[in-house]
């Protein structure tokens, strides 16, 4: 199966990649600015926000799945959007799950390097927006690593996508939900083969990211 491949497998892999790349990139676009802003700002209640961000890093996927399901189901407040059991909703659920992790990791890293950057920028009369971009530039290698973590989390997540996607064949079936299904039906070989493909994809993304890091150094 791994060598010859088949149409269904290609379809599942494509859906998985679409979901994982979209959700990890969106989580990065939301989480990184939040992390940089919180790290570089001083405001009342900052400590509470940081504790909250770090708490949200441990959000249980099943809980996120249930909350998103309730919000977007037919009777929920966003039911009219008709997103239930769609790849789009699976992406939304994953973004909710992953962006706090991205924000928390970014905040932790930026806080550790921000002091000399903020002092230097302030001393030169550089404004806050430009200072935040400079901080971002100083964090680019770490942000690639954070992205890899976000992607790994997205591609390997099963709890939330199972609930909001429903594991529907030819529509919302992804590799992790297929693995879970195969396990439930006793097809361990197929499940392990899919697991290996999942690992190979993660390896490929890691290699590309490493090359990118080396080229921009």
């Amino acid at each position: 199966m791994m060598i010859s491949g088949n149409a269904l497998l290609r379809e599942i892999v494509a859906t998985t990649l679409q979901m994982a790349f979209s959700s990890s990139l969106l989580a990065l676009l939301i989480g990184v600015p939040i992390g940089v802003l919180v790290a570089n700002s001083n405001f009342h209640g900052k400590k509470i926000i940081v504790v909250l961000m770090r708490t949200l890093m441990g959000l249980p996927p099943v809980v996120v799945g249930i909350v998103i399901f309730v919000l977007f189901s037919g009777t929920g407040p966003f039911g009219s959007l008709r997103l239930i059991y769609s790849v789009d909703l699976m992406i939304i659920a994953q973004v909710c799950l992953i962006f706090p992790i991205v924000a928390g990791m970014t905040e932790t890293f930026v806080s550790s390097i921000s002091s000399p950057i903020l002092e230097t920028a302030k001393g030169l009369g550089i404004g806050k927006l430009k200072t935040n971009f400079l901080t971002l530039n100083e964090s680019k290698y770490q942000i690639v690593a954070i992205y890899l973590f976000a992607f790994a989390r997205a591609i390997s997540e099963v709890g939330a996508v199972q609930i909001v996607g429903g594991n529907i064949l030819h529509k919302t079936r992804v590799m992790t939900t297929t693995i879970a299904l195969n396990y439930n039906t006793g097809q361990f070989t197929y499940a392990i083969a899919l697991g290996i493909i999942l690992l190979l994809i993660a390896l490929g993304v890691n290699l590309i990211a490493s090359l990118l890091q080396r080229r921009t150094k």
Partner: protein
Amino acid sequence: MILTIENLKKQYGDKVVLDIEKFEFEKGLKYAIIGANGSGKSTLLKILAKTDKQSNGNFEFEKDTAVGFMPQHSFGFSMSVLNNIMLAFPLKYKNIAKVKTLEILEKLMLLPLKKKNGAHLSGGETERLALGRLLSNHHDILLLDEPTASMDVQSAIVAEKVLLEYLEQNGATLIFATHSLKQAERIADIIIFFANGKLIEYGKTKTVLNFPTSSQLIEFLQKA
């Protein structure tokens, strides 16, 4: 007066790290702050630069004073030395930024390093970069925290020359912290001596160094 300090105090718990009753800085003069480690030199400069906002008391700059600050630990951004200097220029001067940048790089002997990553420089090179970045823009007052501490003697002399030229051209005031009494003697009009967060003695450079009055300064100069 370009800067007036009144009842400025900072403490960590019960430990007072800075306590100044009143001091006025005259426009166009060069002030060297000397004192042992932990005497309050850096704390004062950070408070004046507003990178440390947790203090009590008042300090006031003359209206519309452009303040430039070089922290004790100079920082090179992860971009070329050329771009490091250019980022200090306001947008409206972008058209002349490169010419000015090359000029300042040459003065500070950084021209051969213009393409090198600012984050990969030695300590002394980073200090020259930080100084160049600050001097590429107009400031009415410069606050420099040990600006040449990591430079070799030759680089420090060159940096001092460039700094003095800038001060003269801009009519700017200088307040700098230093551990080098020779540097203070070369540059400063006024020396301010700090010990344990307090301003102990100040006056004209030669007078303070040759005829110290306080026992703390006498002891400090004997050990230096």
